[in-house]
Every structure is written in structure tokens, then in C-alpha cells.
């Protein structure tokens, strides 16, 4: 097919919403192959039994768990194991701190009427559209010049990760808050609950799916982060997996680097899948039993 012909049939494929096109699925198929095959090859070679990342020499898990003496696997190469530990440690800490702060902020911003709410809302939204490098530079400078009592390393990385995570939690929870509305809380308060009781017994259970989703999403974006972790890096033991990939990829590393990347991929996808499944399961259960009204009905003083 000549170039002109391809353009013409692509055009007709996109522009005709009723016609059955073969080109459009073909283009999409090519795109999907292009987007997945390089990563699939990288994963494949993490299981190579040889040292090459381009010549297949048989299946092996030596780059994951093999040979303590050679210290070449993710498990036994100290720098790789430290990177894995640091990534997980940061993600868990960030998740545990950013989620409660973000949930409280979302509730506060949704209910608070008065001066300051607009500015606070803006302050919450701006980090979402700030390029990472700007936030990285800002945090680096502030820890270098102002909060210099915080040592660079896990502490600065943790503070940075929470900072960019809070807004994500607010966005997730806020959507759910608006969907729930205030009726259930009001009903609870009409039945004699104090506002804080209504929140604890009615609102928080209703928010549970959003809460779980927040935990998982914060975990995923924290473990996935590169720029902030790199700008706020301390010693060699605070290198995270993405930072390790960045500094190691060009140095002709053995397949253990691919193995490390694969581990990160599995963890991230696991977190997101868990969030999706939990979110669905919880929503479903509530959906069946007359939804949120039940929780109000079950409210006892």
C-alpha cells in the first residue's frame, strides 16, 4: 500500500463512524505492540541464564534469587536489595501518612465554609499541575538552605513524597464525598449523633472504598517516583529502584537490573489491581443492601 493510500484509508477509517475499518484496529494493534514489546523483552531477559541482555541462553532465576556468594541477584546484590527496601519503605511510610492527612483535608475542604477555603483549595490543586522538576528543585533548595536540620535521605524523600501525594488523595476522596452527599450524616445527627460521631460511624465507613483506593494509589505513585527521590537523595543507601535504574541503565549492567525493574513492575501492578478489586468489591456489597441507608439505619447511640 502506498503512503497516500494508507493516509486516505486511515482518514476514511477515522472519519466514518459507521464503516467497518480494518486500518484502525491495525494501527491500534501496532501501537500496543510497540508500547509493550520492549518492556516484555526487558522482563524476558531478567530470566536469562546468561549475562547478556540480548542473547537468550536459557531460563533461570539467578538474577532474582541466585547465588549468595556471587552477590549478583536482586536478593544478594547489596545495592539492588537496598534499592528495593528503600522504595518499599518510602512507599509504605508515605501511604500511611499522606492518606489520613489527605482524607482529613478533603473532608475539611468540602465542609468548611468561610474565609480561607478558596485559598486552601488552590494550594491543594497547584501541586497537581506543577512539573516534577520544579517541585524537586523547590524541595531540594528548601532542605539545603532552610530546613537544613533535616538530613538528606529517607527523611527528605519521605517529606517530599507525602507532599506530592496529599493532593491525589484529596481528589480521590473528594469525588466520593460529593457522591455521598450530606444526607446520611444529617440523618445520623437528626437521630442524635454528634457531628464527629456521625463522621466516624457514617461517613468514614461510606468513604472506605475511596480510602483503600487512596492507600493503594499513594503507594503506587510513591514507589514509582523518580524525580523527587533523586533530588532529595542522601547517601547510597537511600537510592530507590527508579534512581538505581537511572544510574545503572547505561553502564552495561547484568540482567539483575532488569530483574529489579520487573520486581518494581509487579509490586506496582499488584497495588493498583488490589485497589481496583477492593474498590469494586466494597462498592458492590454496599450497592446490594440498599446502599448507604443501611449504615444509617444500623447507627446506634
Amino acid at each position, binding site marked *: 500500500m502506498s503512503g497516500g493510500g494508507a493516509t486516505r484509508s486511515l482518514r476514511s477509517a477515522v472519519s466514518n463512524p459507521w464503516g467497518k475499518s480494518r486500518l484502525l484496529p491495525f494501527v491500534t494493534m501496532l501501537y500496543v505492540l510497540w508500547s509493550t514489546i520492549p518492556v516484555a523483552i526487558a522482563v524476558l531477559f531478567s530470566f536469562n541464564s546468561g549475562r547478556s*541482555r540480548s542473547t537468550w541462553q536459557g531460563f533461570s532465576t539467578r538474577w532474582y534469587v541466585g547465588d549468595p556468594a556471587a552477590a549478583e541477584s536482586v536478593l544478594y546484590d547489596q545495592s539492588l536489595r537496598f534499592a528495593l527496601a528503600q522504595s518499599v519503605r518510602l512507599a509504605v511510610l508515605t501511604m500511611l501518612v499522606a492518606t489520613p492527612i489527605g482524607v482529613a483535608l478533603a473532608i475539611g475542604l468540602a465542609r468548611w*465554609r468561610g474565609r480561607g477555603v478558596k485559598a486552601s483549595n488552590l494550594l491543594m490543586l497547584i501541586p497537581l499541575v506543577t512539573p516534577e522538576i520544579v517541585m524537586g528543585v523547590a524541595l531540594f533548595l528548601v532542605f539545603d538552605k532552610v530546613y537544613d536540620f533535616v538530613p538528606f535521605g529517607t527523611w527528605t524523600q519521605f517529606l517530599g513524597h507525602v*507532599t506530592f501525594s496529599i493532593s491525589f488523595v484529596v481528589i480521590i476522596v473528594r469525588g466520593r464525598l460529593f457522591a455521598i452527599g450530606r444526607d446520611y450524616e444529617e440523618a445520623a445527627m437528626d437521630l442524635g449523633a454528634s457531628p464527629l460521631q456521625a463522621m466516624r460511624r457514617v461517613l468514614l465507613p461510606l468513604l472506605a472504598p475511596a480510602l483503600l483506593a487512596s492507600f493503594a494509589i499513594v503507594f503506587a505513585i510513591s514507589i514509582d517516583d523518580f524525580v523527587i527521590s533523586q533530588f532529595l537523595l542522601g547517601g547510597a543507601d537511600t537510592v530507590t529502584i527508579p534512581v538505581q535504574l537511572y544510574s545503572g541503565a547505561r553502564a552495561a549492567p547484568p540482567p539483575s537490573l532488569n530483574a529489579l525493574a520487573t520486581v518494581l513492575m509487579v509490586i506496582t501492578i499488584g497495588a493498583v489491581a488490589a485497589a481496583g478489586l477492593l474498590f469494586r468489591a466494597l462498592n458492590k456489597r454496599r450497592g446490594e443492601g440498599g446502599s448507604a441507608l443501611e449504615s444509617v439505619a444500623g447507627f446506634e447511640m
Partner: protein
Amino acid sequence: MPTNLASGAEYDTVGQRRWVWPGFALPGVAWLVLLFLVPFYAIFAVAMGQLDPVLQRATPEWNPIYWDLTVFSKVFADLFGGQLGVIALRTLAYVFVASLLCLIIGYPVAYFVSRKAGRWRWLWLLLILAPFWINYLMRMMSWVNLLSPDGQINKWLEAFGITNPPDWLAGSHLVVILGLVYGYIPFFILPLFAALDRIDDATLEAARDLGARPSQTFWRVTWPMSRNGVLGGLVIIMLPMFGDYYTPTLLSGSPRTRMYGNSIDQFINQTTSGGAIGAALTIILMIFVGGLMVYYLRSINRSSQEARE
């Protein structure tokens, strides 16, 4: 009247409630003030601060009255007529070409998955979402694997008799641009998918019933209705692309392909006056990217106003 007062305070019983909701917001707001707003201001304070006479370190100046524009004038001189200008122009060109490629490749894909994927739509959707949860650095590393001198690409080329391939990772503009497209295109496709997905079939049927040819239907109905999605997607990928430094570093590492982000990364880590230069470069990037955001928001506003009229 007491009853009015009670209802005037909305659902809250009087007195105690006033501080409850701001109280909920307080930890988050305080966190963002201390770790977002103050750091943000610190960029300005460092860029226009003083140089410590003894240690030769950039010292922040918090009072705008004493801000010093020496560093800025140096940076501007370099930006208009120096090496930095070349880097900035190159960055603009890279981002422009990469965004255009994202549009050309991404539009048919988003269109297909949103409107024509049929029964297997969920699978297609999963496949175009997959890159979101694979680390960007891993995706770049995969290409480093493929393109390295003993990598797969050269092996395949050898099989076709091309035995003297270039070193792909030694400063090729094309490789860096394709790397940017590879890295960011998922973030373009998703908002566009959402915009195309929202278009009601009935609208397209109406266009057909009114006698529009398929191509007219596309250019006069579908395309205008997806324009905000296209713009949104472009802004979403351009914001991080302008500050990207890891893609050119991994896929080339040569000064020939340095981007603006590389300069920021390089200067900010210098303990001497470089910190101030890095901060000034960051401010210029922020102003540029902020302008892009404002343009986007205004065009979204305008089109939603037109839609209402």
C-alpha cells in the same frame, strides 16, 4: 431567632463547630504551606539572593526589597545568544515534534478504543492503560537494552545484512524524540479517550441524518467535540516534557541532545553559585509552563462558553 441561627450555621450545631472543618483541613494545609509554598518561594529567594562571601554558596534572600537580579541577567544573556539559548530552542523543537507525533499516533488509537473496539474494548483499554503502571525509567531502560551496541535492534539489522549500524545511544535526535513519544503518549491518549468516549452516538447520527458525509461528520462534529481532549492531552504531556532530563540522559547522554531540564539538574546540584542559576532556570521554566496552562484554561473556558450559547 434561635431556629434561624441554627439553620444559618447549616448542619452544624452552633459554637463548637466553627473550628471543626478548618481543623480537619489544618494538617494538610499546614503541610502544603511548609513543604510546598515555602519551598516554592525559596526558589525565588535563592535565584535572587546573595552569594555568601566566605563559602561562595548561594544564600536565600527572603525580603523581595533586597532581591538581586545579577544571576537573572546572566541567565538571560545566555538564553538570548548563548549556549542556553540553543538548548532552549532544541527543547522547544523536541517537545513540538514529540507532541505532534503523539497526536498523530494517539488520535487513531484513542478513537478506535473509545468508539470502535466493540466487545474487546476492556482488553484494549487495559492494554493502553498498562504503561501507566510500568515505571517510566523501566520503559526507557527497555529501549536502552534494545538500542545498545549488542542489543536486539542491531542483531535484527545484522540479520538483514546491515553490519555497520550507528551507535543509537550516542546523541541521536531521533532516538531522544522517539523516547519522549514512547514515554509520554499514554498520558496523551487517556484524556483524549475520555473526551471521545463522552461524545453521544446520537450526535453523530444526527449529523448523518442531516446529510453530512462521513468526513464532514468527523471534521464538523467529532473533531471539534474532541478538541478539548486533544488540548488537555497535549498540555498534560508538554508540562513534564519541558522539564524532562532523564530521557535524553538515558537515551543519549551526549551534549548534542541536552534539554532544558538537564541544565536545571546540572546547575542545581552545584554547591557554589550554581544553585542560584538552577533556581533562575527553574523560574523561567515555571513562567513558560504557567503561560501554557493559562492558555489552555482560557481556551477550555471559551469553548464551554460557546457551548452554552
